[in-house]
């Protein structure tokens, strides 16, 4: 599976044509995919915010934003601009350094995790060997940022919100990691590219969701809990805690939290689609279609076409999941903190452990279906 668009190689060859050394070419190349992914993430947030407003309006039989652009598509940009020009306030009795560092620590690990999200065979920033494990490790940093901002705000609602966020995040990380482990067991690799390639054999039939239905549901519940979405948005439960750890924040610092939570939602949806829904794979394998139409799979035009289909498929699957998450938010009530922790420790953890053991057993019994 070594074919596919390799933009880095072509770009470096192009620069070398101007007489630059390969090292300089590499340094010029490095920031480009990072910038592209950052822009993609921010645009994704804008789209998600608009979707959230429109779908919530539809769920409550309202119209929602309408005047800012056609169908209100410019509303999220107006929101962003408003947050940009607002005054940056640090409460007088708050701890200035920790108050500023908190939102940064929440946002940076989420953005770093985009490193491993593949949109195609070579369309990712870095195919690191530890792949999906990097995301699990990075997402464990976030609770520190939440605790930090909760403590630094010097407000009891903030502190309670921060403590709740950390407790929730710790208890849901374990079933999350265990359900990822079952996938890794089937793939024999931690790399996200290998995980998608392992599902690309027979189109929609070979997606992991058929082989890991329990893992899929556990992962999705845990991902929602990690994103602090309703029904798991206890850290910022507005009826009890004002706005949780964000209570004292305004302007750009609040925008960082806002951005972080939406980027995290999109990232989780992307990872569900990569782990369980075949990533960039088309429901019918593209190679099969090309063979049917008698087209050479390695021709440049076919390559560009399959790459664009890959990107479209990844984004489509992710946004389908985002849509489900938004619907869930506007239709389900919130769970209590004890129900939340019970669900995590007494239900999801044993189920994901059993899922891991059964996967290991099935892998030994049917190596051709569960990855030998």
């Amino acid at each position: 599976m070594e074919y596919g668009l390799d933009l880095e190689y072509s770009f470096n060859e192009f620069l070398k044509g101007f007489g630059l050394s390969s090292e300089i070419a590499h340094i010029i190349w490095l920031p480009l995919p990072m910038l592209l992914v950052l822009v993609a993430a921010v645009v994704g947030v804008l789209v998600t915010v608009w979707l959230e407003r429109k779908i919530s309006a539809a769920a409550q039989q309202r119209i929602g934003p309408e005047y800012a652009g056609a169908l209100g598509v410019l509303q999220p940009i107006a929101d962003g601009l408003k947050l940009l020009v607002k005054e940056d306030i640090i409460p007088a009795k708050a701890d200035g350094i920790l108050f500023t560092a908190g939102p940064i620590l929440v946002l940076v690990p989420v953005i770093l995790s985009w490193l491993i999200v593949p949109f195609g065979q070579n369309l990712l920033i870095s195919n690191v060997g530890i792949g999906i494990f990097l995301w699990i490790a990075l997402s464990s940093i976030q609770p520190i940022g939440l605790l930090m901002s909760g403590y630094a705000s010097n407000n009891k609602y903030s502190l309670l919100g921060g403590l709740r966020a950390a407790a929730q995040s710790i208890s849901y990380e374990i079933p999350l990691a265990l359900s990822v482990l079952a996938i890794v067991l089937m793939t024999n690799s931690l790399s996200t590219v290998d995980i998608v390639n392992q599902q690309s054999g027979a189109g929609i039939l070979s997606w992991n969701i058929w082989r890991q239905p329990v893992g899929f549901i556990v992962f999705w519940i845990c991902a929602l809990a990690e994103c602090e979405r309703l029904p798991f948005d206890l850290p910022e439960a507005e009826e009890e805690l004002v706005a949780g750890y964000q209570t004292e924040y305004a302007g750009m610092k609040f925008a960082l939290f806002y951005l972080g939570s939406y980027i995290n939602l999109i990232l989780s949806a992307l990872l569900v689609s990569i782990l369980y829904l075949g990533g960039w794979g088309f429901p019918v394998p593209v190679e099969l279609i090309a063979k049917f139409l008698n087209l050479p799979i390695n021709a440049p035009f076919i390559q560009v076409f399959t790459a664009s289909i890959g990107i479209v498929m990844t984004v489509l699957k992710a946004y389908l999941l985002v849509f489900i998450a938004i619907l869930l938010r506007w239709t389900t009530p919130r769970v209590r903190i004890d129900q939340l922790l019970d669900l995590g420790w007494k239900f999801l953890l044993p189920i994901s452990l059993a899922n891991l053991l059964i996967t290991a057993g099935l892998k030994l019994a049917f190596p051709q279906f569960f990855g030998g």
Partner: protein
Amino acid sequence: MSIAITTQIICFSVLSLVILIGALGVVLLESIVYSAFLLGGVFMSVAGLYLLLNASFVAAAQVLVYVGAVNVLIIFAIMLVNKKEDLKPISDIKSRRIISTAICLTLLSLLIRVDLTNVWSLSSPQNSIGEESTIRIGEHLFSDYLLPFEVASVLLLMAMIGAIVLARRDVMSKDISTGLPVDQELIEKSSETLLTNKN
């Protein structure tokens, strides 16, 4: 000197500086909260050093275990207690500080001596296994390091059972801290859910 090596040297010096300053801050700062957060920074920089040594799996494990679990729990405990009381001034604080500094310096000189006298077998960059290290670590854990691995898990299990026994006081007949007999009825009442019987 190539760009790659220069980048490595810059990264190494920045990481070492952060580790040294951060570790000193953990020990010397008055505020326990700052110490706890700085400890997280030190753990992260150590993970960065592992990354420089091509041990990406160890680096990620370091972040997951030390930053994500150990440090979060430390901060959690500090914030749950969150007592704002003034500590009593200790009379002989100066002599205590001198003694502890002397002990630390002795240990440091011992470490430096070990570092200088030992002959380190350095592997050349060509021999490093890089991405394959994850597989090697797994193989070692299930062959020659199996016993330490299992002993460590038994140790963790013991700690977990101990924590559960301490938290669930109804399994004891006496209170651990005060030695008084525990009122079992009170515990039964408080462990019931609050809302079930009210309607």
